[in-house]
């Protein structure tokens, strides 16, 4: 919950085009991306957006495919809102917010064809690579989706998949030899919050508490590959269109962070 004083302050500042932390409406907080922090993971990345901190680990594992897609690898995205990340997070299975975040990121990866699942098949119907993406929210100061999406793409980009040799109907995994995974273009997500009629990118937690609604737009190249409106408020048609063009424009900054990553 946010105090009435703070709420009034956020709204009155926005009226004059300002934000509580001094940013402009269309400005991200400082973005920091670090990769390969967890040596036991096959890929990992930590992203901070101001005080929001998210760690993503990628693990590749040989397992059975889904029965309806016998010749495709499996991609699974899970998010944990850890109780250490915020006084409002509780231990237990993922709640609707964590599930929603994971599913929005999952859709953005799938629709951008980020991981070429056809190349993760080892023995059709029997053995495929399963790519596990685990999103760990470490500190919550708003805009968890953008931070998690960027960390997910960064972790995948810098991940290495063990070499696998198929001998008859057996798969031999050679952990010492590692290859880059079959990736195409990776998505980034830009969230736009509507606060008292103003549209702002990268809302901090206090702004999220005041916001009427938010819309997360995942961008691949210069197109939108996933979107999700969140919160109980509403958007006007013109606002959705503005949010979309804003997302496409701001996505470039996030895409640059991915380009600048050290090659694994």
């Amino acid at each position, binding site marked *: 919950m946010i105090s009435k004083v703070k709420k009034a302050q956020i709204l009155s500042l926005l009226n004059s085009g300002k934000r509580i932390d001094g940013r402009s409406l269309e400005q991200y907080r400082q973005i920091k991306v670090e990769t390969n922090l967890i040596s036991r993971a096959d890929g990992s990345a930590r992203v901070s957006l101001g005080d929001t901190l998210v760690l993503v680990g990628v693990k590749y594992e040989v397992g059975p495919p889904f029965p309806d897609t016998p010749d495709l690898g499996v991609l699974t995205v899970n998010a944990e809102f850890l109780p250490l990340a915020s006084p409002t997070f509780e231990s237990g299975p993922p709640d*609707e*917010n964590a*599930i*929603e975040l*994971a*599913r929005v990121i999952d*859709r953005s990866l799938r*629709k*951008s064809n980020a991981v070429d699942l056809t190349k993760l098949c080892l023995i059709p119907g029997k053995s495929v690579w399963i790519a596990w993406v685990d999103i760990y929210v470490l500190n919550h100061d708003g805009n968890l989706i953008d931070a998690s999406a960027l960390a997910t793409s960064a972790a995948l980009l810098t991940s290495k998949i063990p070499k696998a040799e198929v001998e008859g109907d057996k798969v031999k995994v050679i952990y010492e030899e590692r290859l880059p995974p079959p990736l195409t273009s990776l998505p980034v997500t830009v969230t736009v919050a509507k606060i008292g009629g103003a549209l702002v990118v990268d809302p901090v937690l206090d702004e999220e508490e005041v916001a009427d*609604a938010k*819309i997360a*737009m995942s961008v*691949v190249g*210069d*197109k*939108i*590959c*996933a*979107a*999700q*409106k*969140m*919160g*109980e*408020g*509403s*958007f*006007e*048609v013109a606002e*959705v*269109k503005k949010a*979309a*063009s804003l997302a*496409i424009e701001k996505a470039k900054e996030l895409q640059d962070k991915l380009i600048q990553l050290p090659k694994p």
Partner: protein
Amino acid sequence: MAGERLISSDGIRHDGRRLDELRPIKMAVGVLKNADGSAYVEQGNTKILAAVYGPRSIHPRHLAYPDRARVRCRYHMAPFSVEVRKSPAPSRREIELSKVIREALSHAIFLEQFPATAIDVFIEVLEADGSTRCVGINAASLALADAGIPMKDLVAACAVGKVEGHLVVDLTDLEDKNGEVDMPFAMMYGRKKITLLQLDGILSYEELCKAVDLAMTACEKIYAMQKEALKQRYLALRKSIEEGGG
């Protein structure tokens, strides 16, 4: 679907519809005795029942908001509603959809008139053939109105998709599974406020704008049908009173 096309060269879809044509829609209001409000909506083969209980006391009590009602929503698919039996336990998909549907509906309700209460919305998908969350919203919105809950507007919903390069409205399951894009959309049409928007698939900025405009036109039609369905409910009620009294 190998080789078979979903849209013919003259722009006719697999079920005979034009690109911007809705499926046949049936709406009935007040279909369940026990619920405070209820509605049944059929959109093509998609069949959905919605019921509303409340405003009523909320348990556990700590969930109550001191200054307004709390909307709770459960979107649930019957095990027999889909091709392969679905476990009745709520899936991650159902949990996400329950959340976005709740957020699509609550903006339309005067929640502040019922502090510390719960408004429970139950949506049961009896048969699924695409656009279930949108049809669910259409039914739930009618059920809320039927429960006599004061609302700013009805919420009308319709999915827009991209199939074989064409933007189409009111997707069937086949179009959803084989198409490129699914964009569920809900709007308080009288106030032109978008309360649900999801996108699964790639659209350029121009396509997204077009899709939103197309969804709005579809919602206009559904909104008119919702109003008519509510009117029919009260006309029937009046008739029965008049007959009873006469």
